[in-house]
């Protein structure tokens, strides 16, 4: 005992408490584009939340005297065909986009993670059934599936959540399952089994924490995707309905006036582009920092 314990002597008293989170943040902060994205998204979230305070205009007010005004100091991006301030509409649209970006992603992440871990860890019939279900969902062309769901349930925001979650969970489940399969072979899982740890506990406290980095990356990358889906659905008229201000809808509506007031159609598109870019930057940055193995 004495000699082995002697090893202690040349060990430092305390090892710097470097946490996983701090390492990640360090890696992330070094990525310039990711930081730009983060700043943009924070700004957007702020603007979206405080839109009513920030904007002097009412997004739903109809002032037919002020139709399609060009950009001015009062209306920075001009007005639409109802005389509504385009910038204000875009800010309110950000609310929808941000909610649509996060809520369905969270739902599909939740379902997908649960299914993926269950499928990967339990194996056998459970795995077979879950994976065939996932295969089925994945084989549906996403936009069409979303459209079919909207067709079935009707076009509104809540149903977009359902449609996007339905489209999204299977992909998550697949990734989580393959990670679970890899983790399952890891010795620390076997160690837990050797200790008599129950299956449920292994899934929750051993596998789940190890898939979280992947989940964070998946989440960050599914946000821009969901925003795109929503805007596409709304553009096609099967998504958010007027007078709500969704960016896709604003483009669809604005393009009727493309010649008279191009900003009305172009600016919401720019908003989508910038937001999606920002989230993609963040997602790429997170992936590089958290889980380089997940590259595409």
């Amino acid at each position, binding site marked *: 005992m004495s000699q082995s314990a002697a090893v202690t002597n040349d060990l430092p008293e305390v090892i710097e408490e470097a946490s996983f989170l701090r390492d990640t943040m360090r890696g992330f902060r070094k990525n310039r584009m990711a930081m730009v994205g983060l700043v943009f998204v924070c700004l957007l979230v702020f603007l979206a939340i405080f839109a009513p305070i920030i904007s002097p205009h009412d997004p739903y007010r109809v002032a037919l005297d002020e139709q399609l005004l060009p950009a001015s100091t009062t209306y920075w991006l001009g007005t639409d065909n109802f005389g509504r301030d385009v910038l204000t509409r875009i800010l309110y649209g950000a609310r929808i986009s941000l909610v649509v970006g996060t809520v369905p992603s969270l739902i599909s992440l939740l379902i997908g993670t649960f299914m993926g871990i269950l499928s990967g860890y339990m194996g056998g019939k459970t795995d077979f059934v879950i994976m065939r279900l996932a295969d089925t969902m994945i084989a549906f062309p996403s936009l069409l599936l979303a459209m079919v769901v909207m*067709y079935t349930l009707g076009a509104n925001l809540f149903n977009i959540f359902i449609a996007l979650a339905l489209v999204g969970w299977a992909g998550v489940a697949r990734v989580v399952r393959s990670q679970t399969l890899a983790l399952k072979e890891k010795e620390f899982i076997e160690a837990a089994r050797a200790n008599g740890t129950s299956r449920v506990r292994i899934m929750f406290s051993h596998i789940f924490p190890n898939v979280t980095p992947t989940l964070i990356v998946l989440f960050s990358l599914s946000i821009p995707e969901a925003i795109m889906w929503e805007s596409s659905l709304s553009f096609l008229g*099967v998504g958010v309905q007027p007078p709500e201000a969704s960016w896709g809808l604003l483009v669809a509506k604005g393009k009727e006036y493309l010649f008279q007031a191009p900003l009305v159609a172009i600016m919401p598109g720019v908003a989508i582009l910038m937001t999606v870019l920002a989230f993609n930057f963040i997602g790429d940055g997170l992936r590089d920092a958290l889980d380089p193995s997940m590259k595409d």
Partner: protein
Amino acid sequence: MLMFTVRRILVSIPVLIGITAILFVMLNVVPGDPIALLMKEHASPDVIERVRAQMHLDDPLITRYFRFLFAALQGDLGTSIKLNRSVTTLIMNAFPNTLYLAGCAALVSWVIGIPAGILSAVRRDSFVDHFFMGFSLLGVSMPIFWSALLMQYIFAVQLKWLPVAGFYGFEYVILPAIVLGWSSAGVIARLTRSSLLEVMRHDYIRTARAKGAREISVISRHALKNALIPVVTIMAIQVASLLSGAVITEAIFGIPGVGRISINAIQARDMPLLQGSVLFATVLVILGNLVADILYSVLDPRIRSQMRKDAR
């Protein structure tokens, strides 16, 4: 190989059955009567009842499902309520247009995506890399309906180089193919780049260098084939998704393809047509995955011989 393909197809069967079932249930529990829609203002209740009975819409769901499944197996996807034509015929007539568009778009995405990805990986962190990756990310991040609008505005309205919309010849397909191809070029370029970078980290690349191979030969002879295996498989899947997913592009550019049919079907609530077109698109995706799997195994000798062993 044959065994593998056959087995792979057999595995798709439960998926297909699942798909038809989900689709059928989703589309058939919808509130709102397709007949009422068909007849609009002119609908009187007794006429509706008559037509419903004629179309067997008052049978139980399960009966209708099996009738649909059985007919679908024989290539009969039913009759469009709104267009009064065979759904199969409608889809098969529209498909070549979609195929043409998707083929051109895929070509665009490969011609741009693969070289851009290779150059970016080789000149990692250089200006070229940043440029191409920015370009790719832009392609991935731009909503198609918006970039299509922009392209139409710039190239058709302002510059008058290309026609705005329609489908009467090659020049009509250029803009939609670019719009559609750009977004998938982004995916291809990013994948090519990361795959090549990943391969370049492998030991056998070091081996090739240790043999004294020139860098260009290291990339072309040793890295590229390995790096393109995942790219090629993604390409196969992407063609399938282009075929099934050109909905928005077809709508904006007025291309009478399968995507357009789905949109019309949704707007018109033409249930058999929607059912048929979605099923068709789904089969395309499954086929795409199948082709991807087969390509993968053809390209990778490790899997190839594994399959040969399994088949024996």
